[in-house]
Structures are given as structure tokens and as C-alpha cells.
């Protein structure tokens, strides 16, 4: 299982180059990174996967964009909105991750959406940056939302990914620190380890239900 940070933003979106991100990620215990709008490759033994983040687009344009890029080998993520939008996105072929659930509407992710995510193999992302950077009621609200999300995850077993949303190497955290932060939202160590492998789980080629044995 590859330990992956599901979203980092290297230069020019952030202040650190992708090679420097790779150097830091290696020392912090990661095996791969999903770097948004960055070409795929390998730096310092760390696998870099291209991440494409779709946000603030109407559904019709989201469908057109996903159709255009789904064969490019990138990790395609869509920012969550209202419940109807999320259900439509989850059934869209080529979408890997639904992001920003903590900032979406309170009813944006319910048991039906959770079941659909599990059936379609779409991961729901846990953005760690609000846990690190916010304080007080804002952080409490995010913790509450993530705890709600994990209730559905335990019931329906859809994939979870963990993202630092780092725009700088100073925003990256070690895997052990992330496991500690995940304990705030009720994830124990095996859960966190499973979530680190979430990207690999959703990007792995689908195994056919019926296998022809010669």
C-alpha cells in the first residue's frame, strides 16, 4: 500500500517546487503525492501523480471536462456542493475523489450518497488543513462534519483519502502527526493507514466481476 497525500499544490500555486515537496514528503514518510496541475513522474523516489481539481463549474461543464480528461491518467477530483450535485458527480465515470465535504452544505452527504460512493468506488476526501490552521468553532464544526462522515464510512465502506492541501513544505505533516490528527475525528491507526492508501484504491484499474478462465 502506498502512503499518499491526496492533494498538494506545488509552485506556482504554492511556494515550494514539486522536487522540494518530494524531498520533504520522503523524510515525512510518504511514498507518493497527488500534485495538482503538475506533470506526473518520480522525484527522489516519490511518485508524483497529476491531480485535477474541478470546482465552481455547472454540472454540464463538469461532465464535459471529466469526459475530456478521464483517460489522461490523472487523479480527478470534484469539489462537493449540494446533495443533488454530489450524487450526480459520484455516478460520473472517471471521477476519483469528492472533495471539500466539510465546506459543503450540511445535508450534502447523506446515506444515499455514501452508498453511491461505495458502489461507484469514489473516495471522499478528508482535508486536514482546517484541523491544522483553524481554531475554535470553525475547527469544532469541521471535526463534527468529519465524525459524521466516518459514521457513513463505517457503514458503507467507501474509500477515504487524506489531503494536506499543502501549498508549502511548511504545511506538510509527517504521517505519524496525521495519524494523531485523525484521532481527533475518531479514526484509529488502522483506519488512518487505510485512508493513506485511498488514492491507490480508487485509481487502481477495475477488476472485472466476471473472469474468464481458459
Amino acid at each position, binding site marked *: 500500500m502506498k502512503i499518499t497525500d491526496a492533494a498538494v499544490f506545488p509552485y506556482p500555486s504554492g511556494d515550494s517546487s514539486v*522536487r522540494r515537496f518530494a524531498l520533504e514528503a520522503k523524510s515525512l514518510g510518504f511514498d507518493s503525492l497527488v500534485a495538482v496541475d503538475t506533470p506526473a513522474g518520480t522525484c527522489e523516489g516519490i511518485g508524483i501523480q497529476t491531480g485535477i481539481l474541478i470546482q465552481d463549474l455547472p454540472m454540464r461543464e463538469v461532465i464535459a471536462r471529466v469526459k475530456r480528461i478521464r483517460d489522461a491518467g490523472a487523479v480527478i477530483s470534484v469539489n462537493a456542493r449540494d446533495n443533488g450535485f454530489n450524487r450526480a458527480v459520484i455516478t460520473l465515470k472517471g471521477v476519483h475523489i469528492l472533495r471539500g465535504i466539510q465546506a459543503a452544505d450540511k445535508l450534502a452527504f447523506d446515506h444515499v450518497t455514501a452508498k453511491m460512493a461505495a458502489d461507484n468506488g469514489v473516495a471522499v476526501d478528508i482535508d486536514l488543513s482546517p484541523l491544522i490552521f483553524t481554531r475554535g468553532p470553525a475547527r469544532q464544526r469541521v471535526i463534527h462534519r468529519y465524525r459524521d462522515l466516518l459514521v457513513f464510512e463505517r457503514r458503507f465502506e467507501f474509500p477515504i483519502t487524506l489531503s494536506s492541501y499543502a501549498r508549502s513544505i511548511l504545511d506538510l505533516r509527517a504521517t505519524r502527526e496525521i495519524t494523531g490528527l485523525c484521532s481527533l475525528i475518531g479514526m484509529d491507526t488502522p483506519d488512518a493507514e487505510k485512508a493513506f492508501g485511498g488514492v491507490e484504491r480508487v485509481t487502481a484499474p477495475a477488476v472485472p466481476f466476471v473472469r474468464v478462465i481458459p
Partner: protein
Amino acid sequence: MSTRPPTLRENRRYILVRVEPAGTEIDQKELYYTISDAVTSLWGDGMAAVIMQAVVAAENGHVVIRCRRGTEKELAIALSTVTAYRDVRLVLRIVAASGTIESLRERIRSGPQTSPVSPEPEECIFDKKSMSVLQCNGQKLDVIEKGFKNANRLFISRDDLE
């Protein structure tokens, strides 16, 4: 209160952290308030009183933080939420935990001393812009764009240089 005999004292643990970006000036007292704020914000006053965090040493870009034994995990989680100090962005990377300060000092002395692979450049070109080098450690370069307009630190590697 008079000093307690050793058997009645509370057991302490010491956590060694490395301060990044390298070269950040650390004032022990101000860092204590920053850490205390992070601990209190995350765990509340009750747990902060149990953790009893304190900054006991700051040397060579490392800081030793004291806590009560058994609360190392809580302190470590709180330390990962420290993001700024004196309005300067920083991160505290946990290196080790120990029961004595001396063993952590030994760890600082015996830590990996990454020497530059080539002489440290004073300036370089990155993304077609002229940069001044602030820090250089092996492959890692911290640079700042020349000129008065941009004061943002960029984190790059030697392979990024043109």
C-alpha cells in the same frame, strides 16, 4: 512550595523538535506562548494543565519541550497545529522523545549533518527570475526573489535551478 524529594516528583518527558524553515530566530518565551496557545485551543485548559508544556531549551535550530509523562501524544498532536510564530510561518517537526534533556542534546549533536553537495551559491536563477539564496542544506535551497517587491520565501531543490 518547597522542592519535593525525587520519588514524589511527577515524571516528565522531553520532546525534541526541529524548527523549519532553518535559520528561524527562536525566543523561548514567545515560542512557549505559541505552543501554549495551540495546546489550549486544541485540548482546552483542563488538559493543558495536565500536559504542563514548557519550552526548556532552544539551540541549533532545535527546541526541547517538556510535558508530563503519558501526555506526549497529545502534545505532539498540538505541536502539529503550530503554524506561525511572531507572524512568521514555521513548522515544528518532531524528532524524538526522551526522559532526559541530556539524551536529546546528545541527539542534536549526533544528528545528521547534511553538508552541501557543492559550495553554497549566493544567488541563482529559478523560473527565469533571479533569486538570493537564504539557506542551503544539501539538495534543499530556500531562496527569495531579488528586489523589494517580493519578500516571499520559496523552497526549491538544486535540481530546479536553471
